[in-house]
């Protein structure tokens, strides 16, 4: 009698379910491959130099996307990521100039610590004052934007060549720039342990349903602060990557990464409602979003039209990706409400 109400037929066990659950990330990979094929087709002598510019160009956006992912997964949003990147960028550029590699590394560690604290501050304010995080972080973006200009009023500064080589150089082969290794290493060392541990679980739980998470015994406030702190850490990484990519500090260059980071996470399959997605999708999406404008320039398209095309592409991709769950949810019943009848 009870069997149909409780036991559910397993429609897609094992592999099929794994594919279904990661469909979006796989879709992002497919998009990357498609764009890459297109790039090579219009640019037949695609070589190590192009790979290097792609990686160096995509790194700041990739870090910005990972930073936003951490916050959004926990059910928040951080509009100050770009401004925090700008501060990290100008601090590093101003004080690294004319110093050696060791000093640059020590300074980087300090910048990363500062970024983590700045992120945590966002979280503490949002949690303690109960002001909506979108307001808190928007206000903080003005604060950090101002601080960046106070530190460095106009583009300048610099960094030792060895430091810049962390992104643009290559240890093994010219086909694999250091930047990609650095990106993988940082994400692997910082994100992977979080994702696999209890903290990651708490983060996803809080993003998915705050009340339920609280009742499950998750410390909601500290978890949210933690999400912002990790976001701040990756924003600082982004600021340093920006320095590696341009060679100088710029107080305004970072700010665009707040919105383009959000584009990347949306394209990468992170739900802005929280609790769903991962970091791989947004990283790949960051590479796609870096390649598309470059390709459009190569094909001789007006850069302003390029903006239009890029925006349209994001909407189309997200629409296509949203179609499947939409179709599924339309079939979800209204009548039955809380029962399964």
């Amino acid at each position, binding site marked *: 009698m009870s069997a149909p109400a409780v036991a559910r037929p397993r429609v897609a066990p094992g592999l099929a379910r794994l594919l279904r659950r990661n469909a979006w990330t796989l879709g992002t990979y497919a998009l990357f491959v498609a764009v890459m094929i297109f790039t090579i087709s219009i640019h037949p002598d695609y070589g190590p130099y192009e790979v290097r510019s792609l990686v160096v160009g995509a790194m700041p956006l990739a870090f910005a996307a990972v930073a936003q992912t951490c916050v959004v997964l926990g059910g928040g949003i951080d509009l100050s990521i770009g401004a925090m990147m700008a501060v990290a960028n100008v601090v590093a550029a101003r004080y690294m100039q004319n110093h050696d590699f060791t000093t640059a590394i020590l300074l980087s560690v300090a910048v990363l610590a500062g970024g983590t604290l700045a992120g945590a501050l966002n979280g503490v304010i949002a949690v303690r004052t109960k002001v909506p995080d979108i307001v808190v972080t928007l206000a903080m973006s003005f604060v950090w934007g101002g601080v960046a200009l106070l530190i460095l009023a106009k583009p300048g500064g610099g960094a030792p060549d060895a430091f810049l080589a962390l992104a643009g150089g290559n240890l093994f082969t010219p086909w694999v720039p250091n930047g990609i290794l650095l990106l993988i290493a940082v994400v692997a060392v910082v994100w992977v342990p979080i994702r696999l541990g209890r903290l990651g*679980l708490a983060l996803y739980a809080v993003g998915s349903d705050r009340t339920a998470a609280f009742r499950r*015994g998750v410390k909601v406030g500290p978890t949210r602060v933690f999400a912002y702190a990790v976001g701040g850490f990756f924003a600082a990484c982004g600021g340093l990557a920006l320095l590696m990519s341009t060679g100088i500090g710029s107080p305004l260059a970072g700010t665009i990464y707040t919105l383009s980071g959000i584009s990347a996470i949306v394209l990468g399959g992170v739900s802005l409602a929280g609790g769903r997605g991962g970091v791989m999708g947004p990283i790949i999406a960051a590479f796609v979003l870096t390649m598309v404008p470059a390709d459009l320039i190569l094909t001789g398209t007006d850069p302003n039209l390029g903006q239009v095309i890029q925006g349209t592409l994001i909407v189309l991709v997200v629409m296509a990706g949203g179609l499947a769950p939409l179709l599924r949810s339309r079939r979800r019943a*209204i009548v039955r*409400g809380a029962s399964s009848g």
Partner: protein
Amino acid sequence: MTEDGILLETRGISKNYGAVVALRSGDIRVRAGEIHALMGANGAGKSTLVKVLTGDIAPNAGVILLDGREARFASPASARRAGLASVYQDVSLVPLLTIAQNLRLTGTTMAAIRPWLQELELEDVDLSEYARDLPTPTLHLLDLAQTLASLPRVLILDEVTATLPADLSERVFRVARRWRAEGRSVVLISHRMTEVKALCDRATVLRDGTTVGVVDLASSGQEEIVSLMLGPAAASVVVSEGAVADSAPARKVDPSPAVEVRELRSGLLQDVSFTLRRGEVLGIVALEAQGQADLFECLSGNRRPDAGEILVQGKPRRFRHPHDAIGAGLVLVPADRALALLRQRSVLENIALPMVNQLRRWGLINTRAEGRRVRTAIARLEIDTRAGSRVMRLSGGNQQKVTIARWLATGFLTLLCFDPTRGIDIRTKEQIYRVLRELAASGSAVLLFTSEMPEIQLACDRALVMFGGRVVAEFPAHDATEAVLLRAAHGLERGGAGPAEAAS
């Protein structure tokens, strides 16, 4: 434990949200080794008291004594460590995590939960499914299994059975009895009087946020509980079962059919045919998942049937959208209020919502006409609008009345009610039955699915019993006793005139 065997005691717990007092003075004394019912009308403060007991919210005043010692719980986790754990009315599993991950969140080991999964017959559930992909009754039982795994000394069940079909509720009761037998305590919140009477030892009754009495269920009956719940002012409206039907205006069933369903097929539904006449309340009785939800989905235009016909006043209609069904006069009151209402908006806006198609003048909403019709509907259903600026602040019963008032104000031909009284207190239930009967008396047709079989005799003229996606029996209301309906709903006998024959 204190000398009189009291394990858990609260004194003068109060909680208010701004100006709204949810709990004035909640007192409860639970002995070790008893099943203790916590009863009260909707909005009496039961859920608030439970949330205080389990650390979900902090009280404004009052003390909790566990073993005679004062206890404070900062979070559900700390209450659980102290031995108090609750299964909440709304499922508290994180929807986007798998069941296994949800278990990890509370640190529940597989070894600890496995016996309880067996006890509740959940061995077949795939723990790697996302919580949101499982049906609500299953989630409730999983929630219970996990709560049991922490072996709480006081197990609190907040309206758990409201969303469970009878056969699954029985598993919950089995566990509750076992808990009592092992010398631990259970606090049960339920609106189902028979359930409470059969299971519980004593009952604490709350009214308007205050404990008004403790009833020993072995020696006194449900009348005492009901009169405590209703209070001295309302004692005169206490009615025994069946009285509502007798007191209702004499109904003339108009033979003209409002809705005819012919060989409808969709989802679990297999070739269902019946006729709903104007001026009658037709009850549908079924166990969980026998196709009743699919039937209501099709009739309300929420889904297109695979086969079969729906005739409204003799004309075949095809609904592509709920808008089409509403246009044809078929309107739905779903069980889950949250699906019908705009929770953040006012009572007025919620009632007026479907009317905007009628009351527009040059694209603007005619607010005066709107207000008049809304006020009439509010008065007729006696909706308590004190917290009316946001529907989510109303009690469940009042929310359900808002859903019905919406259609009263808009106008309709046929009201489709899918378990409208789920989780609603007795007094509001009676008001709803009365309104349904008045609607029928004034010429509307009402189709009422209910998970509580005694409702059939209280509110309906006829009852259809569904089993396995088919209508298997039909009874006039005076024959439709709970025992008869229950047998038919389990597919045990074919009773009455088969509607399939009647249609042909």
